[in-house]
């Protein structure tokens, strides 16, 4: 049913919200685990954290940024629908917000990959 039914804005927004939510949850566990390295001394922590500056991890970090950004922006859209009667405007709201986030995503990814943000 999920594959055969027509994918319109709402279902796309919902599926991506779930996907990014689960992905960010995985990262949360990983991130908290990294913080335990603070107890293993300077070298251990620096090694653990600097692993993330490898090119492949940089790309993953950009994806993580995108996932968090999407989840946050769509979350605001859900709140607008639930509490501010924005149901009729949900499509325009979604694509408008996605347009703005796309710009933020490009800027953010560039900062991450060019190592301006570490």
């Amino acid at each position: 049913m999920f594959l055969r039914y027509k994918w319109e804005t709402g279902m796309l927004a919902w599926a991506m919200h779930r996907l990014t939510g689960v992905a960010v949850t995985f990262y949360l566990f990983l991130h908290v685990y990294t913080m335990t390295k603070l107890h293993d001394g300077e070298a251990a922590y620096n090694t653990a954290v600097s692993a993330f500056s490898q090119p492949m991890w940089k790309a993953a970090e950009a994806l993580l940024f995108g996932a968090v950004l999407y989840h946050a922006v769509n979350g605001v859209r859900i709140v607008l629908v639930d509490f501010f009667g924005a149901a009729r405007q949900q499509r325009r709201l979604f694509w408008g917000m996605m347009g703005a986030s796309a710009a933020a995503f490009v800027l953010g990814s560039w900062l991450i990959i060019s190592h301006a943000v570490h």
Partner: protein
Amino acid sequence: MAVRATGNAGHWSWYFQRVTGIALVLTLAAHFAVNHFMRPPEAGGADWAGSLYHAAVLRLSNPLYKGFELTFLMLATYHACNGLWAIGRDVVTRPLARTALFMLIVLAGFALAVVGWTAILPIDQDWLARGAAATQ
């Protein structure tokens, strides 16, 4: 189909997912800005050569910031677990399996919180000195 009692109605789960969600947008922005764009206040000028470890310890030794990070952790843990639980109730329908899944999610969340607190809470002003002494 029998109507169940309203004890596990689910309205708080829904409501607090939105409250913590909005709170997380704000706290995450602050967390991100502080950790990626700002030097720890004690670090001084532009030629500061401290490692990521130094920076992290300096930030977390500030009780205010530590409190903020722990609040952020609790918000994120609740929001993540509550989100997983929402997905779980969509997919799992048998009452016993639902209860088992709920306990599993609570356990995972609890473990995450404990690991996070024990990692961050003891970090204080003397952490760098003690760490250096321990590695010698």
